[in-house]
């Protein structure tokens, strides 16, 4: 990324994101307990995920498969990996360590393409186990006054992939687009349900600022507890402004973890730990390395579905539209339909417009591509006006049926060009003064007057005439 985007005059924003995605496996990472959200606390637990003495972890093969699938979708290199223990004392992990991948992760050095065509580098995407869920309670119900915490280990040991981006992101909108795109990729792959509101997708943002032109990065803060894509943008902007305000008065931010406070729209410092992080990583002695073969990787590549960026590119190519203008149809999952419709001979641009504007956005399309193509072809050939086409489509959506038959039943075929000319001539004869004015008018005045004539024609035909066809007849008559 070479282009400098100023966040505030003279300041550049630098963001890297860490996204945690819980994998949609049936069981946990290292034991056979159910991996499902929403169960009664501590009902999906066993000696392994409770860290009881004598228990041993066994890797979930599907989790490894999903992680590699995600890695390949992000154009990562998939390498032999080793699990490690990350040691820390916190009641969300009963073992007092979290099993993760440290210096030998499954996926490294990838990239993600945003809808605007820019790329964000992916440093790594590694497998690890999720922690348990702690909730705090205290006299006043607020965390500061907490007297105790309650711990639910249903989530402890749930497999997740942490995707770490390069500090390539330069605007809050880009950060949001990155998370949104990653979410779509994960959903397309079927490896996670990626629900931010349920915590199956969580975002931490590393934020710093620097004066435009300064080559080095400055102190960054890690923002946690961001619960929606909208908050990703808000939290980043708040934090960047906070840094600039500190530099403006000759101070500087402290490198620390901060928490996004959604209610107050600000970040606040976590109570600093007594020790700086010292996780004493070491290779997990209870697990052996994962060594994917070239065949494994080839098999995963062959089974990858078409991803959103490729879908946007395909649709843009077919329709001649800009990539940004096909995003909506791709996001709705309607792009395959457009491709099929165009494949049976319908005009691509018209098809895209009709699909985007006139099909229910939140539903899968049940219409046959051939029927829809027929409708678009009729409209393009001038057999149906735009208004008529919409009416026919509404009928097709409601009750199904063939567009030709529906149009015939509605009497739409009657408005052939000969009939239209007759109607226009009738209107001209009935309004001689306006017509005389129209004939001598310049383009601008004509435009105004043609509105009057078109309106009269529409009235006479009950809206079944095609506005463009009317304009053509008017122009032809005036030129005589």
């Amino acid at each position, binding site marked *: 990324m070479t282009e400098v985007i100023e966040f505030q005059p003279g300041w550049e924003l630098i963001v890297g994101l860490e996204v945690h995605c819980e994998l949609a*496996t*049936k*069981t946990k990472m290292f*034991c*056979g*307990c*159910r991996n499902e959200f929403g169960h*009664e*606390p*501590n*009902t*999906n*637990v*066993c*000696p392994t995920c*409770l860290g009881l003495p004598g228990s041993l972890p*066994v*890797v*979930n*093969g*599907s989790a*490894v498969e999903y992680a590699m699938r995600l890695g390949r979708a992000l154009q990562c290199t998939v390498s*032999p990996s*080793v699990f490690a223990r990350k*040691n820390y*004392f*916190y*009641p969300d992990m009963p073992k007092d360590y979290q099993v993760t991948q440290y210096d*030998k992760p499954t996926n490294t050095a990838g990239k993600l393409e945003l809808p605007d065509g820019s790329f964000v580098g992916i440093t790594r995407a590694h497998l690890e186990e999720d922690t348990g869920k*702690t*909730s*705090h309670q*205290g006299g006043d119900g607020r*965390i*500061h006054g*907490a*007297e*105790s*915490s*309650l*711990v*639910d*280990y249903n989530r402890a040991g749930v497999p997740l992939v942490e995707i770490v981006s390069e500090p390539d992101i330069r605007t809050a909108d880009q950060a949001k687009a990155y998370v949104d795109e990653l979410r779509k990729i994960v959903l397309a792959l079927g490896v996670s349900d990626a629900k931010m509101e349920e915590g199956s997708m969580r975002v931490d943002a590393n934020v710093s600022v620097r004066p435009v032109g300064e080559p080095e990065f400055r102190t960054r803060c890690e923002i946690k507890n961001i619960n929606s894509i909208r908050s990703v943008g808000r939290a980043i902007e708040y934090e960047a402004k906070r840094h600039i305000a500190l530099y403006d008065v000759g101070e500087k931010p402290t490198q620390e*973890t901060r*928490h996004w406070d959604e209610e107050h729209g600000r970040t606040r410092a*976590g*109570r*600093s*730990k*007594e*020790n700086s992080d010292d996780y*004493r990583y070491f*290779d997990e*002695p209870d*697990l*052996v*390395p*994962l*060594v*994917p073969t070239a065949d494994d990787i080839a098999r995963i590549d062959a089974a990858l579905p078409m991803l959103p960026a490729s879908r946007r590119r395909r649709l843009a190519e077919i329709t001649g539209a800009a990539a940004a203008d096909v995003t909506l149809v791709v996001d709705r999952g309607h792009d395959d339909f457009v491709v099929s419709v165009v494949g049976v001979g319908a005009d691509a641009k018209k098809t895209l417009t009709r699909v985007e504007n006139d099909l229910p956005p939140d539903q899968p399309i049940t219409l046959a591509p051939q029927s829809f193509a027929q409708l678009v072809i009729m409209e393009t050939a001038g057999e149906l006006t735009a208004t008529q086409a919409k009416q026919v489509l509404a009928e097709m959506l409601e009750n199904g049926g063939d567009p030709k038959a529906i149009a015939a039943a509605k009497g739409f075929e009657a408005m052939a060009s000969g009939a239209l000319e007759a109607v226009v001539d009738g209107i001209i004869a009935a309004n001689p003064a306006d017509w005389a004015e129209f004939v001598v008018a310049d383009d601008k005045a004509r435009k105004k007057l043609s509105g009057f004539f078109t309106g009269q024609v529409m009235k006479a035909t009950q809206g079944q005439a095609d506005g463009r066809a009317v304009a053509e007849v008017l122009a032809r008559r005036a030129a005589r």
Partner: protein
Amino acid sequence: MLAMPKPISRADVAHVARLARLRLTDDELDQFTPQLAAVLAHAADVEALDVTGVIPTAHPLPLRNVVRVDVVRPSIDRAAVLAAAPNVQDGQFRVPSILAEES
């Protein structure tokens, strides 16, 4: 020739003990520091070996890719799980308030 690592200091031992949540007395620090130093000195002997051409290994076992099929197995009964906890509330483990991080 590898440089010998610096011998472990009393402060290092106190730091490591703290990370492991061990509260050591001054006497214990005096006692453990030379003991740990001896263990590390032994490990340092290994560093003196010429390991050129030896592939680093994460594991002594000749195994890789040990995975299981993603099939649910029964969990244990919650009453039994919580019976082992010193403090319980609402079906959850109750622990002393957590000061770090979540504030």
